């Protein structure tokens, strides 16, 4: 039971990152590799802030802002310098490695014995895993609520239409470049915030912690989309949260199987492949006519 609770709470923290990845996916039609740099950026900003005595709440907020700045850089590279989105991500991610190392001052900053959001809740009498669950739950509810409200505003709608049909949006007087920059900003802010929360949960920020984030993000999104097709925007965000939790459950399931350590990655991939294909197999007899609208569905 403990393991399941821990999977759920970790899934909640990771889902913020997955939502960030999903947004760039919708707006740019590609997975933005900036994520692999902005995730440890958030962890770095947050940890260094906490160590220097800033409250964990403010430190997490600073991480969000830092991620947004990184997003603006990517946005400008892509829209103003006309660098292809995939390369833009690689460029910013590479640059962020040095920046993250500058911020951290060394490769690994520990948060053991420091105040974190989780520890603040623990001092109020919550058990460790519950504290993580509460932090993750509150954060994800706030994020989804904020995104829902934002995407109902005029700018938010313009952003979505840029993702759906860029030419049409431009014809209707939307500054698509500006919208893309806003999109990049939003996504990387969220990814960075997720990094900040994960660092507080893990007890350290490490320069290498960004490796593989994009894979986790994509896996969460795809699991969410495979099990729930054709949903409205807000519901889609919720399914990504479910996807992130299921992904962690799958990984933990594999860890519980007792496979040889060197085979873990292979088994994770196999179990993931089975999980992803089950709904499709069951659906086979019925012919699907509806095809997801462009950009809205990945599979």
């Amino acid at each position: 039971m403990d393991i399941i609770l821990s999977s759920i709470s970790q899934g909640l923290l990771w889902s913020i990152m997955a939502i960030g990845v999903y947004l760039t996916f919708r707006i740019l039609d590609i997975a933005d590799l900036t994520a692999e740099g902005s995730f440890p950026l958030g962890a770095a900003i947050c940890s260094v802030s906490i160590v220097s005595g800033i409250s964990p709440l403010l430190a997490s907020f600073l991480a969000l802002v830092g991620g947004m700045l990184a997003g603006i850089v990517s946005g400008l590279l892509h829209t103003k310098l006309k660098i292809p989105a995939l390369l833009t991500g690689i460029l910013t991610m590479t640059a962020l490695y040095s920046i993250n190392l500058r911020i951290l001052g060394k490769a690994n900053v520990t948060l053991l014995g420091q105040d974190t959001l989780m520890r603040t809740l623990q001092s109020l009498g919550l058990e460790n895993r519950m504290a993580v669950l509460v932090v993750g739950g509150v954060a994800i509810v706030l994020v989804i609520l904020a995104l829902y409200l934002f995407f109902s505003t005029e700018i938010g709608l313009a952003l979505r239409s840029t993702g759906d049909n860029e030419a049409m949006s431009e014809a209707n007087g939307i500054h698509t470049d500006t919208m893309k920059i806003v999109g990049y900003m939003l996504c990387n802010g969220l990814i960075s915030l997720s990094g900040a929360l994960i660092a507080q949960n893990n007890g350290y920020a490490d320069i290498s912690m960004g490796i593989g984030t994009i894979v986790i993000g994509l896996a969460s999104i795809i699991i969410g989309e495979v099990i729930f097709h054709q949903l409205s925007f807000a519901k889609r965000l919720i399914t990504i949260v479910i996807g992130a939790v299921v992904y962690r459950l799958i990984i933990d399931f594999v860890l519980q199987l007792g496979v040889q350590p060197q085979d873990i990655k292979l088994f994770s991939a196999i179990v993931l492949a089975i999980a992803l294909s089950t709904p499709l197999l069951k659906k086979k007899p019925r012919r699907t006519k509806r095809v997801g609208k462009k950009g809205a569905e990945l599979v």
Partner: protein
Amino acid sequence: MRTIGMKKKIILGLATVTAGLVLGACGNTSESADSEMTNVGILQYMEHDSLTQARKGFVSELEAAGYVEGENLTLNYQNAQGDQANLQSMSESLIGDNEVILSIATPAAQSLATSTQEDPILFTAVTDPVDAGLVADNEAPGGNVTGTSDMVPIEEQISLLLSLAQDAETIGIIYNSSEANSKIQADLAQEAIEAEGVAVKVLTVTTTNDVQQVMTTLAQEVDAVYIPTDNTLASTMPTVGEIAAEYKLPVVPGSAEMVEAGGLATYGINYEELGRQTAKMALKIIEEDADPAEMAVETSTNLELVINEEVAKSLGIDPESIVLPD
């Protein structure tokens, strides 16, 4: 109708995964209920020569003390394969059931220390446990965490290096900037070299892919090279050794394993021995109920001068002439 059917399937799917996890968890509990068995957990950060040597040393020392895996010892071994996202889950699965948990390398130790403030945790292959936040003080750790540090005798290694390259004007240092342990050692080494009035040139890599290029650049500008006990460089010592041979450079790395893989010589630690030393601490916890809070962090007691004779000959140095300077 369709969506409801879909939801049912999802619930079914989730239930299956959950049931699997519960069953898995139950399986573990029944094992630990067996009072004949001693449970020891091991969490290794990544697949790597030195780290694996440390683990093997740990296990073989337990065996020497009468704890044989499968007979009276259950080893719960997890390896995160360098994936930090999995360290936390692995830590959670190790706590609760084990009498002592060994963590190998800094991120693994930090993950475990965050997950439990009760279960005794030992670490090895951590250079500066105070800096890593694992212990309050090396003499009196004060918590549930203690272990062995792989801090190497850097000053001795530097004087060995300088005795091997007596006319050196510039000494190169190469390490991976993403490894906290390496930076600590590289800074100390730089200080020690500069104290002898020799210039230092430091270059860093970030992945194994950079090593060839960075080492070649460094080799052209320096007269000898020092390498900390860096995981990335340890994995690429054959490459480093080849480039060093080409430029006739003596290389003194941090560990014995790295000398064997292409370095010239070192006076340093042997990770297998370090693992054995950590196992002795584990035995104190298992058999004598020792409290990690009061067990001082240990550094390697088994330092040795290691020489790679082939490399020495290719550099035109008589292996016999290599001795530790006073």
